[in-house]
Every structure is written in C-alpha cells, then in structure tokens.
C-alpha cells in the first residue's frame, strides 16, 4: 500500500490540483469569461423569496363543466335525443334520457368528437359516461380529463407568472413546475416580496359588460369600488384576451392616473359595435368580479383604444397595466408556502457560518497535531485538500450553498479526519506486533480499508436519502455532506497515504511512532 508508481502520483496531484483550482474561482471579483462558474448562494444566504403557488383546480373544473353544457345540449338536440331534468351537481352533468344506448355510441365516438374529445396521450376520453338507474345519465370529467385540465392550466399559469415577474424586473428568477398543481418561484435578492405576491394573487380576468337590468342573458349584481350596487348583463362585450397592450397614463384634466389600452382587430370591432349601439348607457369594466368603473358611453369608440379610470394611485395604475398586459390566470393562485429571508439576515448567516467553520477547522487541526504529531500534519494537509476539493466540486456543479450546507461542510471537517484516525489507530496496533515499520504501515492501510469504506458508505446512504426527500436548504446540507464523503475518501486514501509513504520510506531505518 505504500508503493506508488509515478503515474499514480501524477494522477493524485493532478486531480487534486484541477479540482482545487475551481474553488479559487469563487474569490475572483469580476466575471471570468473563460470559466464562469461559481457556487450559488441559497436564498437563506443571499436573501430572497421562495414561493410555492398552487392552482385552484376546483373552480377550474366547475368552470369547465359549465362550458360543456351548451355543446352537450346542442349534441342532444342535433341527434333528436330528448332529455329532461338537466342539472349540474358536484361537477357533473346529470339528465334523463330515453335512448341512452344511442347517446352512448355518439358520446363515446373517437371521430371528430367535439363535445368529448379523445385524448391520445392518455388513451382516454375527456369525459366519463355513467348510467345511473331510471335512465339517468351522469357525465363528469375522467381522471385523465382532469389531469389534462390541470396540466394545461398549470402550463398557462407558469407562462403568465413568468411574464408578470419579468415585467417587475427581478434578477434571475426561477420559475418551475412542481408536481401536478404547483409552481415554484424563487426570487433571489428581492427585498419586498409583497408587491410580487399581490401581483401573483390576482387572476386579472377583465371584461367589459353593459349595465342593464333587462338582459336576455341574465344579470349579476356587483359592487363598484365606491360601494354602489349595479346590475350588469351577463353578456361579455369584450374580454381581456382582446387586449394587445396596456400602459399606465395620466389623464390631463384632473392629473389622474389611468390605464390606456389598445385592442386587437376583433376586439376593436366588438367594442366599436357595442359602443355605437349603446350610446348613453353605462359600460362596466369588471376585473375579477369587481367593477373598477362604469363610465357612460358618450360616443362610439371605434379606434380600438380606450382608457380605464378608477381612482387609481400611479402604482395601482402601473400594476393594473402590468396585469392586463400579462393576461389572465386560468385560476386563482394561492401561496401554499412562503419563505423569505432579508438580505441583512443572509449576510449575518454567511458571517456566522464562516466564523464557525474557521473556528471548528482550527480546533480540529490543533487536536490532530496534539494527537498524532507529524502524522497529524499529514491528516491536516488531507483535511485542507479535502476542503479545497469539496468547494471545487461544488463550484464545478454550480451547486447551491445554503446555511445548513455550511453546517454540512463543518461537519465534514469533523468527520473527515475519521478515515485517517481509523488508519492511524490501525497502524498503531500493527506497530505493536509487526517488526518492520514499513510492513506495519502497509498492513495498517490495507486492513483499515474495508472499515473506512463501510463506515463512509453508511453516511453516504443517509446523505442520498436526505437529498432525495429534503427540500431547499436541507438539500444543500445533503449535497455538501455527500460530496464531503467522496472527497474524504480520496484525500485519505490517496493523498494522505502518499504523504505517509514519503515520511515512512525516508525514515525507514529510524524509529517512527504514531
């Protein structure tokens, strides 16, 4: 175990050198053009917000099943199927039918079925057909139908969340899908997450509807911002989808902040027609079921441009414009988990993390020299190399360093010497029985090998499980702990062994104690 070929030695020191060099990249002040790699600081160290958003699929499914009513009734009428007792209950459509067989064959046909499309990816229809007693039929979304509704709503939400966040202009946000219903948002360096939370909390469904008591579509009674109750037709003149741009503006006469918008061709046509036909009436601008304002239509607006006023502050006008530009979310998003760390706490954490690392490191080094003298130096050299390699690998992987991650490094310092301690203790034992010093060292290394491996693999297993199940900062701990074990094995079995062999072979004719 103490013989090293030249190639071996070259391999050890080249590996050590190359990996360690990467750790130095973290100390350069300017961005390096050649190798731009750095350990990322976790949100708990640099400050920032972590948000977990969840789409509200319940309201979405309700909406979707409602949208099936008209096409379904049309399908029934077109095929001369008489239905009665049609009702919506618990997100399913229930009605009575005489000829259920005929309906079933039409409803479950794979060809150009617009009411109940066949989803090829899942090999399933969007809707399930169930026959209850007494010719009752129940239609509800199938498992995969729900999945695809959630999926498309989630994809769309992610897109809109991204647009809203980009519009605010935070640096390097992370926006990812998590599972079937959730969106993970990480906003590093953000001081006040409240504005973003507010922006993400609004669905921003905008529509224009006439104020009218007698509408053939029925009406809703909604409140205006000023507390006035208005009856508003259910018929949507035009919705936010027809907007192509929205910007905050200042209305000259009163110096009042407003939002100017422009419409696409279709929107402009609809808007023009309605305003022409209804001069003198009031048009309500409804955002998320609240009336922002309900101005009188003084003259037809055919240009496709308009202004929304509503006693906004300039900030509110800016935010509303942003929301309208980014489009409406398919469902409300709720924040199911939030973790925000202020930048000064992050700085404090880095400081205290580094201080405890340095102190822990020095304590361990002093203890090892006290215990093993010259071989303590060997173990300490291995420990320093270990740290350099650990940080080097973290840099190569561009891993995220969190506060628990720093704790993982400190713990690695404490536990890394274990490999060398196991070996040195074994050599001590061998020295008692073995006459030749070289032999004693040699067999010490080879006998301790299995134990060192076994002992470290157990910790590695714990680290891997921690990585798989841990979240955020805990994952950072698992990464440093796991990589620490690998670098520990390398430094103990290659570097420290080589250093030991140099000492032993040089002093082979003298007494060596360990």
């Amino acid at each position: 175990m103490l013989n090293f070929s030249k190639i071996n030695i070259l391999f050890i020191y080249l590996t050590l050198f190359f990996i360690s060099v990467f750790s130095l990249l973290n100390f350069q002040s300017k961005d390096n053009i050649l190798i731009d790699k750095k350990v990322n600081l976790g949100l708990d160290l640099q400050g920032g917000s972590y948000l977990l958003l969840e789409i509200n699929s319940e309201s979405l499914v309700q909406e979707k099943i409602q949208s099936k009513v008209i096409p379904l009734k049309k399908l029934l009428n077109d095929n001369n199927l008489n239905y009665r007792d049609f009702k919506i209950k618990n997100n399913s459509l229930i009605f009575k039918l005489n000829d259920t067989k005929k309906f079933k064959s039409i409803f479950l046909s794979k060809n150009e079925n617009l009411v109940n499309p066949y989803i090829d990816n899942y090999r399933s229809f969007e809707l399930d057909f169930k026959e209850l007693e007494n010719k009752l039929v129940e239609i509800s979304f199938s498992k995969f139908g729900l999945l695809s509704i959630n999926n498309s709503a989630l994809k769309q939400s992610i897109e809109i969340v991204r647009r809203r966040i980009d519009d605010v202009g935070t640096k390097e946000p992370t926006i990812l899908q998590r599972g079937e219903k959730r969106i993970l948002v990480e906003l590093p360096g953000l001081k006040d997450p409240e504005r973003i939370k507010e922006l993400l909390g609004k669905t921003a469904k905008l529509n224009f509807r006439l104020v009218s008591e007698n509408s053939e579509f029925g009406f809703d009674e909604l409140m205006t911002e000023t507390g006035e109750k208005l009856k508003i037709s259910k018929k949507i003149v035009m919705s936010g989808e027809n907007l192509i741009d929205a910007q905050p503006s200042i209305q000259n006469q009163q110096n009042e902040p407003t939002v100017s918008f422009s419409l696409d061709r279709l929107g402009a046509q609809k808007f023009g027609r309605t305003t022409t036909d209804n001069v003198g009436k009031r048009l309500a601008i409804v955002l998320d079921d609240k009336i922002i304002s309900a101005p009188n239509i003084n003259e037809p607006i055919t240009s496709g441009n308009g202004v929304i006023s509503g006693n906004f502050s300039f900030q509110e006008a800016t935010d509303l414009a942003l929301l309208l530009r980014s489009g409406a979310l398919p469902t409300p998003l709720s924040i199911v988990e939030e973790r925000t760390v202020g930048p000064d706490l992050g700085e404090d954490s880095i400081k205290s993390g580094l201080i405890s690392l340095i102190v822990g490191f020095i304590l361990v080094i002093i203890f090892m020299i006290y215990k093993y003298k010259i071989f303590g130096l060997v173990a300490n050299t291995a420990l320093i190399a270990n740290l350099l390699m650990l940080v080097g690998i973290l840099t190569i992987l561009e891993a995220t360093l969190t506060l628990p991650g720093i704790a993982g490094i400190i713990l690695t310092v404490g536990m890394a010497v274990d490999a060398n301690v196991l070996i040195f203790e074994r050599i001590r034992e061998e020295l008692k029985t073995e006459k030749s010093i070289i032999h004693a060292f040699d067999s010490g290394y080879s006998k301790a090998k299995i134990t060192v491996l076994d002992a470290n693999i157990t910790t590695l297993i714990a680290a891997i499980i921690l990585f798989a199940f841990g979240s955020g900062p805990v994952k950072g701990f698992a990464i440093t702990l796991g990589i620490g074990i690998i670098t520990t094995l390398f430094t103990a079995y290659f570097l420290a062994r080589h250093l030991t062999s140099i000492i032993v072979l040089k002093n082979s004719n003298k007494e060596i104690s360990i």
Partner: protein
Amino acid sequence: MIKNINFVSKFKTANIISIILFILSIFLIGFKGLNYGIDFKGGTLIELRTDPSINASTIRDSLNSINLGDVNVKRFGKVGDYLIKVEQKNTNDNNLIPEIKKKLSNNLNSEIDFRRVENVGPKVSSELLESSIIAISLALAAMLFYIWIRFEWQFSIGSIIALFHDVVITLGIFSILSLEINLSIIAAVLTIVGYSMNDTVVIYDRIRENLFKYTKISISDISNLSINETLGRTIITSTTTLLALLSIYLLGGEILRGFSFAMILGVIIGTYSSIFVASPILKFFSVSYKTLEKKEEKILP
C-alpha cells in the same frame, strides 16, 4: 493506547438505563408530544428586528388587537430581535404578513425590519411531515439492508436497534425540553442515523475480524476486545466531530442552534449505543465465527 476496560460487565446496567430512557422517551413523545414548528404544523413565522427598548409583551399586545388566534412572541438572539409565531388559520390569507407589518409599525412607532418570514400552508406542512417520516424510515431500511449484505442478519438487527435507540431518545430529549422540531432537525436526525451507523460499523467490523482470529473465545470477550481495540478511534473521532459541532452551536447563529444541538446529542448517544446497545445484541444472538462462515469468502478481502 489500547486500554483494557471491562465493558461487558457494564452491559447489563447500561441496557437497563437504555431501556428506561427508551420507554420514557416513547411515553414523552406519545403523551407530551413533540413541539412541531411551522414546517410540520403550518402557520406563519416572522423574525423581526426592532428598537431594543421594545419588549416582547408590547409586541404581543399589539398583535392581539388583530384577530390572529394563538400568537407566540419570544426573544431571538440579540436584543431587539424577536420571533413571532402565528398558528395556522383555516383560511389561506395572502394579506396576513403586510397586515401584521402595518399594525406593528403603527403601534410601536419604530422602525421594524422583517428579517425572515416563513409561511407554510396546512397541506404543505402535512406533506412535509409525511415525506420526513418516509425519509427517516427509508434511511433506517437502507441501513438495515446494507448491514445485512455486508454482515449477517444478527448484525443488521443489532445496528437497527441501536439506531432506533438513538433516534427515539434524541426525540425524547427534544420533547422534554419542548425544543422545536422542524426540517433542519429532521436533517440532523438523518445525519445522526448516518453517524451512529458509521460508529457501529467500525466496532462490528472489528468484531467480525476477531471472530475469525480467535475462534475459541466467547462473543462477550470478543466484543470487549473489539470495543477496546477501537476505543481510541471512537474517542478521537467523536471529539473532532463534537469540536466542529460545538463551534456551530456557539458561533453558527440562532438558525443553526437547534440543528447543532440535536447533532451533539446524537453523536453522544450514537457513540454510547455502538458500544452499549449494538454489541450486547450480538451476544444475545450468540453470534460466533460459525454464523459468519458461509459468508467468509465474500467478505474478507
């Protein structure tokens, strides 16, 4: 520095103490319960820094005027730093935090800095608890399996009982001291599992080696010899690990305090259990070199 301490003679006393502590811990966890943090119970946590002249009860009074339910305010680290914990409410209120901030700065007439805000919803907290339990169980199962492959089933049982012993007693101490259990404590528990296992494996490895070396000696004497032979290493490694952990505990800041405290407990208990729990179990199963014979070729290099 091989000593010759008669550990085996102390096995019995140690085992009684262990069993008492273990049962006591189970009772504590069962009846007194664990003090779950917001990670597992849901709720809102705010760490704030304000003028040192303001005390906890002023903050508490100010918060009681908004209907928040159960509010807990306590000092956290430096003077003027406080930790506010608000119990989970049924409704998911996105405006809770700005509301609290507004209320506090109005009532206290002083600059208030929210240094950290954590808000965990009821669904997420139960998921986090579930995945933590899965993680710990999986870690225990993986260890069981690994030792079973590398040694024999008797060793596997011995090490897993030692691990249970460590985890349960550590949690029992957390229960009696009402210390908070959060995600980082789970990380600590998993690391304890790894560390304790590491310690047990070192002794087991030596026992296995000695079983082959001295086939005539009883398992009690083999255990004693093996524990003594590895004692130097056990002491040195736990010392260096404890040195590192003490440094985190004292200097690593408020956030890492619970984590490092759990680890310190775990290292001490884990070291003890390798000697006084894992080894006696081999004696209980009357392990001898014959137990290992069929695996001999596979294991020894």
